[in-house]
Protein backbone atom coordinates (compact mmCIF):
# COMPACT_ATOMS: atom_id res chain seq x y z
CA UNK A 1 0.00 0.00 0.00
CA UNK A 2 2.79 2.35 0.95
CA UNK A 3 4.60 1.45 -2.25
CA UNK A 4 1.52 2.18 -4.33
CA UNK A 5 1.08 5.59 -2.69
CA UNK A 6 4.70 6.41 -3.41
CA UNK A 7 4.40 5.25 -6.99
CA UNK A 8 1.29 7.35 -7.58
CA UNK A 9 2.98 10.33 -5.93
CA UNK A 10 6.00 9.92 -8.19
CA UNK A 11 3.87 9.81 -11.33
CA UNK A 12 1.84 12.83 -10.22
CA UNK A 13 5.03 14.81 -9.62
CA UNK A 14 6.53 13.61 -12.92
CA UNK A 15 3.46 14.60 -14.97
CA UNK A 16 3.12 17.96 -13.24
CA UNK A 17 6.80 18.79 -13.66
CA UNK A 18 7.05 17.44 -17.21
CA UNK A 19 4.05 19.12 -18.76
CA UNK A 20 4.06 22.17 -16.49
CA UNK A 21 7.66 22.93 -17.33
CA UNK A 22 7.01 22.47 -21.05
CA UNK A 23 4.05 24.84 -20.99
CA UNK A 24 5.99 27.38 -18.94
CA UNK A 25 9.04 27.23 -21.22
CA UNK A 26 6.94 27.82 -24.34
CA UNK A 27 4.85 30.72 -22.99
CA UNK A 28 7.01 33.72 -23.93
CA UNK A 29 10.02 31.42 -23.69
CA UNK A 30 10.54 31.86 -20.02
CA UNK A 31 13.28 29.26 -19.70
CA UNK A 32 15.39 28.99 -22.84
CA UNK A 33 15.34 30.21 -26.40
CA UNK A 34 13.73 33.58 -25.95
CA UNK A 35 15.30 36.95 -25.44
CA UNK A 36 13.52 38.97 -22.77
CA UNK A 37 13.98 42.64 -22.04
CA UNK A 38 11.55 44.36 -19.68
CA UNK A 39 8.05 43.19 -20.58
CA UNK A 40 9.07 42.26 -24.15
CA UNK A 41 9.98 38.78 -25.32
CA UNK A 42 11.32 37.70 -28.70
CA UNK A 43 12.51 34.42 -30.18
CA UNK A 44 15.68 35.48 -32.01
CA UNK A 45 16.26 31.97 -33.41
CA UNK A 46 12.72 31.69 -34.82
CA UNK A 47 13.91 32.98 -38.18
CA UNK A 48 17.06 30.91 -38.39
CA UNK A 49 17.45 27.83 -40.62
CA UNK A 50 18.34 25.61 -37.65
CA UNK A 51 16.31 26.68 -34.62
CA UNK A 52 17.08 25.15 -31.24
CA UNK A 53 14.58 22.56 -29.88
CA UNK A 54 12.69 25.10 -27.76
CA UNK A 55 12.34 27.52 -30.66
CA UNK A 56 11.30 24.65 -32.94
CA UNK A 57 8.58 23.66 -30.48
CA UNK A 58 7.51 27.30 -30.27
CA UNK A 59 7.27 27.53 -34.09
CA UNK A 60 5.19 24.35 -34.21
CA UNK A 61 2.97 25.50 -31.37
CA UNK A 62 2.15 28.94 -32.81
CA UNK A 63 1.90 27.79 -36.43
CA UNK A 64 2.65 31.34 -37.55
CA UNK A 65 4.73 32.68 -40.41
CA UNK A 66 7.97 33.60 -38.67
CA UNK A 67 10.06 36.53 -39.81
CA UNK A 68 13.40 35.50 -41.27
CA UNK A 69 16.50 36.63 -39.47
CA UNK A 70 17.33 39.28 -42.06
CA UNK A 71 13.72 40.42 -42.38
CA UNK A 72 13.05 41.54 -38.85
CA UNK A 73 12.07 40.53 -35.37
CA UNK A 74 8.82 40.47 -33.43
CA UNK A 75 8.64 41.38 -29.75
CA UNK A 76 5.54 40.50 -27.75
CA UNK A 77 4.56 41.91 -24.37
CA UNK A 78 1.72 40.51 -22.30
CA UNK A 79 2.52 42.45 -19.13
CA UNK A 80 3.31 46.07 -18.39
CA UNK A 81 6.73 47.23 -17.23
CA UNK A 82 5.74 46.50 -13.61
CA UNK A 83 4.86 42.90 -14.48
CA UNK A 84 1.08 43.19 -14.24
CA UNK A 85 -0.86 41.43 -17.07
CA UNK A 86 -2.17 43.79 -19.75
CA UNK A 87 -5.90 44.32 -19.27
CA UNK A 88 -8.22 45.89 -21.84
CA UNK A 89 -9.99 47.81 -19.08
CA UNK A 90 -6.88 49.95 -18.59
CA UNK A 91 -5.09 52.55 -20.65
CA UNK A 92 -1.39 52.00 -21.26
CA UNK A 93 1.28 54.53 -22.15
CA UNK A 94 3.98 53.05 -24.37
CA UNK A 95 6.95 55.38 -24.53
CA UNK A 96 10.66 55.39 -25.12
CA UNK A 97 12.97 54.38 -27.91
CA UNK A 98 12.96 51.42 -30.27
CA UNK A 99 15.95 49.54 -31.72
CA UNK A 100 17.21 50.67 -35.11
CA UNK A 101 14.87 49.43 -37.83
CA UNK A 102 13.57 50.56 -41.22
CA UNK A 103 10.13 50.79 -39.68
CA UNK A 104 8.02 49.02 -37.09
CA UNK A 105 4.39 48.29 -36.37
CA UNK A 106 2.52 47.93 -33.11
CA UNK A 107 -0.52 45.66 -32.97
CA UNK A 108 -2.77 44.89 -30.01
CA UNK A 109 -3.88 41.28 -30.12
CA UNK A 110 -5.92 38.83 -28.10
CA UNK A 111 -4.43 35.58 -26.80
CA UNK A 112 -5.17 33.75 -30.08
CA UNK A 113 -3.61 36.48 -32.25
CA UNK A 114 -6.85 38.21 -33.21
CA UNK A 115 -6.34 41.93 -33.78
CA UNK A 116 -8.43 43.75 -31.17
CA UNK A 117 -8.23 47.26 -32.62
CA UNK A 118 -11.52 49.01 -33.34
CA UNK A 119 -12.46 47.94 -36.86
CA UNK A 120 -13.20 51.46 -38.14
CA UNK A 121 -10.01 52.89 -36.68
CA UNK A 122 -6.31 52.28 -37.20
CA UNK A 123 -5.68 48.54 -37.30
CA UNK A 124 -2.08 49.03 -36.18
CA UNK A 125 0.31 51.84 -35.45
CA UNK A 126 3.06 52.35 -38.01
CA UNK A 127 6.32 54.08 -37.06
CA UNK A 128 6.12 56.32 -40.13
CA UNK A 129 2.69 57.63 -39.14
CA UNK A 130 3.22 58.81 -35.57
CA UNK A 131 3.16 62.10 -33.76
CA UNK A 132 6.66 62.45 -32.39
CA UNK A 133 8.41 64.55 -29.77
CA UNK A 134 11.26 66.87 -30.69
CA UNK A 135 13.83 64.22 -29.79
CA UNK A 136 12.26 61.66 -32.09
CA UNK A 137 10.62 59.56 -29.44
CA UNK A 138 6.91 58.87 -29.51
CA UNK A 139 4.29 58.43 -26.83
CA UNK A 140 1.60 55.89 -27.67
CA UNK A 141 -1.61 55.33 -25.74
CA UNK A 142 -3.27 51.93 -25.97
CA UNK A 143 -6.74 51.66 -24.50
CA UNK A 144 -10.44 52.09 -24.96
CA UNK A 145 -10.72 55.68 -23.78
CA UNK A 146 -9.97 58.70 -25.94
CA UNK A 147 -6.29 59.56 -25.62
CA UNK A 148 -4.05 62.29 -27.00
CA UNK A 149 -1.05 61.98 -29.34
CA UNK A 150 -0.93 58.48 -30.79
CA UNK A 151 -3.94 56.43 -29.83
CA UNK A 152 -4.38 52.74 -30.61
CA UNK A 153 -8.03 52.15 -29.82
CA UNK A 154 -8.88 48.63 -28.69
CA UNK A 155 -12.13 46.81 -28.02
CA UNK A 156 -13.42 43.95 -25.89
CA UNK A 157 -12.69 42.66 -22.43
CA UNK A 158 -9.97 40.59 -20.83
CA UNK A 159 -6.23 40.23 -21.24
CA UNK A 160 -4.33 41.15 -24.38
CA UNK A 161 -0.79 41.49 -25.64
CA UNK A 162 1.15 43.99 -27.69
CA UNK A 163 3.20 42.87 -30.69
CA UNK A 164 6.00 45.17 -31.80
CA UNK A 165 7.41 44.05 -35.13
CA UNK A 166 10.71 45.58 -36.22
CA UNK A 167 11.41 45.26 -39.94
CA UNK A 168 14.94 45.25 -41.33
CA UNK A 169 16.30 45.74 -37.84
CA UNK A 170 19.79 45.90 -36.43
CA UNK A 171 18.66 44.47 -33.09
CA UNK A 172 20.97 41.57 -32.27
CA UNK A 173 23.24 42.87 -34.99
CA UNK A 174 26.17 43.30 -32.62
CA UNK A 175 27.70 46.35 -30.98
CA UNK A 176 25.29 49.22 -30.34
CA UNK A 177 22.44 47.27 -31.86
CA UNK A 178 20.12 48.49 -29.16
CA UNK A 179 18.01 45.42 -28.45
CA UNK A 180 17.67 46.77 -24.92
CA UNK A 181 16.20 50.09 -26.01
CA UNK A 182 12.63 48.85 -26.16
CA UNK A 183 9.82 51.11 -24.99
CA UNK A 184 8.36 50.95 -21.50
CA UNK A 185 4.69 50.11 -20.95
CA UNK A 186 3.16 52.07 -18.08
CA UNK A 187 -0.34 51.53 -16.80
CA UNK A 188 -2.48 54.65 -16.56
CA UNK A 189 -5.91 54.59 -14.99
CA UNK A 190 -8.28 51.66 -15.29
CA UNK A 191 -12.01 51.78 -15.86
Amino acid at each position, binding site marked *: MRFLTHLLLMFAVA*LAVGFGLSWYALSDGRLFGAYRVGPWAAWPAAGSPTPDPYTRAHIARTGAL*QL*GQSEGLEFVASTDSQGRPLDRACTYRVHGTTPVASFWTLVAEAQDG*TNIARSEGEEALHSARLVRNEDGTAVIFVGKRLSPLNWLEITGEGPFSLALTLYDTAAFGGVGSGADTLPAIDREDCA
Partner: protein
Amino acid sequence: MIRTLLWLLAGVLLGGIIHIVVILALPYFATEDVWSRVAALQAIDKPVVLPVPKPGEPNPLRLDPDMVYAVCQVNLADGPGVLSGTLPDAFWSIAVYNRAGAVIYSTTNRDGIGQNLDLGIFNAAQTRLLAQQQLDVAEGLLIVESPQNNVFALVRLAPPHPAMRARYAEALSQLECGNIQ
Protein backbone atom coordinates in the same frame (compact mmCIF):
# COMPACT_ATOMS: atom_id res chain seq x y z
CA MET B 1 10.60 10.11 5.25
CA ILE B 2 13.83 9.76 3.29
CA ARG B 3 12.18 7.12 1.17
CA THR B 4 9.33 9.52 0.29
CA LEU B 5 11.86 12.20 -0.64
CA LEU B 6 13.65 9.74 -2.88
CA TRP B 7 10.38 8.90 -4.59
CA LEU B 8 9.73 12.63 -5.08
CA LEU B 9 13.21 13.09 -6.51
CA ALA B 10 12.55 10.22 -8.91
CA GLY B 11 9.32 11.98 -9.89
CA VAL B 12 11.18 15.21 -10.64
CA LEU B 13 13.74 13.31 -12.75
CA LEU B 14 11.00 11.53 -14.66
CA GLY B 15 9.31 14.92 -15.09
CA GLY B 16 12.51 16.26 -16.64
CA ILE B 17 12.55 13.38 -19.09
CA ILE B 18 8.87 14.00 -19.96
CA HIS B 19 9.69 17.68 -20.50
CA ILE B 20 12.51 16.89 -22.93
CA VAL B 21 10.36 14.37 -24.80
CA VAL B 22 7.48 16.86 -25.05
CA ILE B 23 9.73 19.64 -26.38
CA LEU B 24 11.41 17.38 -28.94
CA ALA B 25 8.25 15.58 -30.03
CA LEU B 26 5.94 18.60 -30.24
CA PRO B 27 6.91 19.58 -33.84
CA TYR B 28 6.11 16.05 -35.05
CA PHE B 29 2.68 15.95 -33.47
CA ALA B 30 1.55 19.47 -34.29
CA THR B 31 -1.37 19.21 -36.73
CA GLU B 32 -2.23 22.89 -37.08
CA ASP B 33 1.28 23.93 -38.11
CA VAL B 34 2.29 26.55 -40.61
CA TRP B 35 2.80 24.03 -43.42
CA SER B 36 -0.76 22.69 -43.24
CA ARG B 37 -2.11 26.23 -43.09
CA VAL B 38 -0.13 27.26 -46.16
CA ALA B 39 -0.99 24.03 -48.00
CA ALA B 40 -4.67 24.84 -47.47
CA LEU B 41 -4.17 28.00 -49.56
CA GLN B 42 -3.53 25.92 -52.72
CA ALA B 43 -0.64 28.18 -53.72
CA ILE B 44 1.17 25.48 -55.72
CA ASP B 45 3.35 26.98 -58.48
CA LYS B 46 1.48 30.26 -58.36
CA PRO B 47 1.54 33.29 -56.05
CA VAL B 48 -1.47 33.65 -53.78
CA VAL B 49 -2.02 36.94 -52.00
CA LEU B 50 -2.93 36.23 -48.38
CA PRO B 51 -6.05 37.96 -47.10
CA VAL B 52 -5.01 39.93 -44.02
CA PRO B 53 -7.66 39.41 -41.33
CA LYS B 54 -9.65 42.44 -40.24
CA PRO B 55 -9.79 43.32 -36.52
CA GLY B 56 -11.89 40.76 -34.68
CA GLU B 57 -11.22 37.98 -37.20
CA PRO B 58 -8.99 35.03 -36.27
CA ASN B 59 -5.40 35.46 -37.42
CA PRO B 60 -3.72 32.03 -37.22
CA LEU B 61 -0.72 33.01 -39.36
CA ARG B 62 -0.18 36.18 -37.29
CA LEU B 63 -0.15 38.48 -40.29
CA ASP B 64 0.73 42.13 -39.77
CA PRO B 65 -2.20 44.35 -40.89
CA ASP B 66 0.27 46.88 -42.31
CA MET B 67 1.85 44.41 -44.75
CA VAL B 68 0.74 42.68 -47.94
CA TYR B 69 1.73 39.02 -48.27
CA ALA B 70 2.04 36.58 -51.16
CA VAL B 71 2.92 32.93 -50.76
CA CYS B 72 3.98 30.34 -53.32
CA GLN B 73 4.63 26.67 -52.74
CA VAL B 74 7.00 24.68 -54.97
CA ASN B 75 8.17 21.08 -54.99
CA LEU B 76 11.83 20.90 -56.01
CA ALA B 77 11.41 17.27 -57.11
CA ASP B 78 9.84 18.71 -60.30
CA GLY B 79 12.83 20.97 -60.95
CA PRO B 80 14.41 24.03 -59.37
CA GLY B 81 11.93 26.55 -58.04
CA VAL B 82 11.94 30.10 -59.30
CA LEU B 83 10.22 33.25 -58.10
CA SER B 84 10.61 36.38 -60.18
CA GLY B 85 9.00 39.68 -60.97
CA THR B 86 9.15 43.41 -60.44
CA LEU B 87 7.88 44.87 -57.20
CA PRO B 88 7.04 48.45 -56.22
CA ASP B 89 9.75 50.71 -54.87
CA ALA B 90 8.92 50.15 -51.21
CA PHE B 91 10.32 47.87 -48.53
CA TRP B 92 9.82 44.22 -49.30
CA SER B 93 11.40 41.06 -48.07
CA ILE B 94 11.36 37.41 -48.99
CA ALA B 95 11.63 34.27 -46.88
CA VAL B 96 11.86 30.63 -47.93
CA TYR B 97 10.35 28.15 -45.46
CA ASN B 98 10.80 24.41 -45.19
CA ARG B 99 8.28 21.76 -44.22
CA ALA B 100 8.84 22.43 -40.50
CA GLY B 101 8.05 26.13 -40.86
CA ALA B 102 11.67 27.23 -40.30
CA VAL B 103 13.07 29.99 -42.49
CA ILE B 104 15.93 28.53 -44.54
CA TYR B 105 16.66 31.77 -46.37
CA SER B 106 15.57 35.37 -46.06
CA THR B 107 16.58 38.70 -47.49
CA THR B 108 15.21 42.18 -48.01
CA ASN B 109 15.35 44.56 -50.95
CA ARG B 110 17.62 46.78 -48.83
CA ASP B 111 20.39 44.31 -49.64
CA GLY B 112 20.84 45.94 -53.02
CA ILE B 113 18.36 43.92 -55.06
CA GLY B 114 16.28 47.01 -55.81
CA GLN B 115 12.91 46.37 -57.41
CA ASN B 116 13.65 43.17 -59.26
CA LEU B 117 13.04 39.90 -57.52
CA ASP B 118 14.78 36.93 -59.12
CA LEU B 119 15.12 33.99 -56.80
CA GLY B 120 15.99 30.39 -57.59
CA ILE B 121 15.57 27.56 -55.09
CA PHE B 122 17.66 24.44 -55.66
CA ASN B 123 17.94 21.18 -53.79
CA ALA B 124 21.29 19.52 -53.13
CA ALA B 125 21.43 17.59 -56.41
CA GLN B 126 20.43 20.63 -58.45
CA THR B 127 23.03 22.76 -56.68
CA ARG B 128 25.65 20.24 -57.74
CA LEU B 129 24.50 20.46 -61.36
CA LEU B 130 24.62 24.24 -61.01
CA ALA B 131 28.21 24.08 -59.78
CA GLN B 132 29.13 21.83 -62.70
CA GLN B 133 27.40 24.34 -65.00
CA GLN B 134 25.07 21.69 -66.32
CA LEU B 135 22.03 23.72 -65.38
CA ASP B 136 21.34 26.83 -67.38
CA VAL B 137 20.15 29.75 -65.27
CA ALA B 138 19.87 33.46 -65.93
CA GLU B 139 22.64 35.71 -64.69
CA GLY B 140 22.02 37.56 -61.46
CA LEU B 141 19.71 34.88 -60.12
CA LEU B 142 19.66 34.78 -56.34
CA ILE B 143 20.50 31.17 -55.49
CA VAL B 144 19.04 29.46 -52.44
CA GLU B 145 20.02 25.93 -51.55
CA SER B 146 17.37 23.91 -49.80
CA PRO B 147 18.07 20.58 -48.09
CA GLN B 148 14.44 19.51 -48.60
CA ASN B 149 12.21 19.38 -51.65
CA ASN B 150 9.09 20.79 -50.04
CA VAL B 151 9.42 24.54 -49.65
CA PHE B 152 7.33 27.65 -49.89
CA ALA B 153 8.34 31.26 -50.38
CA LEU B 154 6.69 34.24 -48.78
CA VAL B 155 7.03 37.82 -50.01
CA ARG B 156 6.24 40.61 -47.57
CA LEU B 157 5.56 43.99 -49.10
CA ALA B 158 5.11 47.15 -47.04
CA PRO B 159 2.78 49.73 -48.57
CA PRO B 160 3.76 53.22 -47.35
CA HIS B 161 0.06 53.97 -46.87
CA PRO B 162 -3.04 51.75 -46.49
CA ALA B 163 -4.54 53.37 -49.61
CA MET B 164 -1.90 51.59 -51.72
CA ARG B 165 -2.80 48.10 -50.51
CA ALA B 166 -4.90 47.10 -53.52
CA ARG B 167 -2.26 48.18 -56.04
CA TYR B 168 0.51 46.44 -54.09
CA ALA B 169 -1.51 43.24 -53.79
CA GLU B 170 -2.01 43.38 -57.56
CA ALA B 171 1.78 43.70 -58.03
CA LEU B 172 2.32 40.65 -55.84
CA SER B 173 -0.20 38.56 -57.76
CA GLN B 174 1.76 39.32 -60.96
CA LEU B 175 4.85 37.52 -59.66
CA GLU B 176 5.96 34.46 -61.56
CA CYS B 177 6.47 31.33 -59.53
CA GLY B 178 7.03 27.71 -60.42
CA ASN B 179 9.61 25.18 -61.54
CA ILE B 180 12.33 25.58 -64.14
CA GLN B 181 11.78 22.65 -66.49
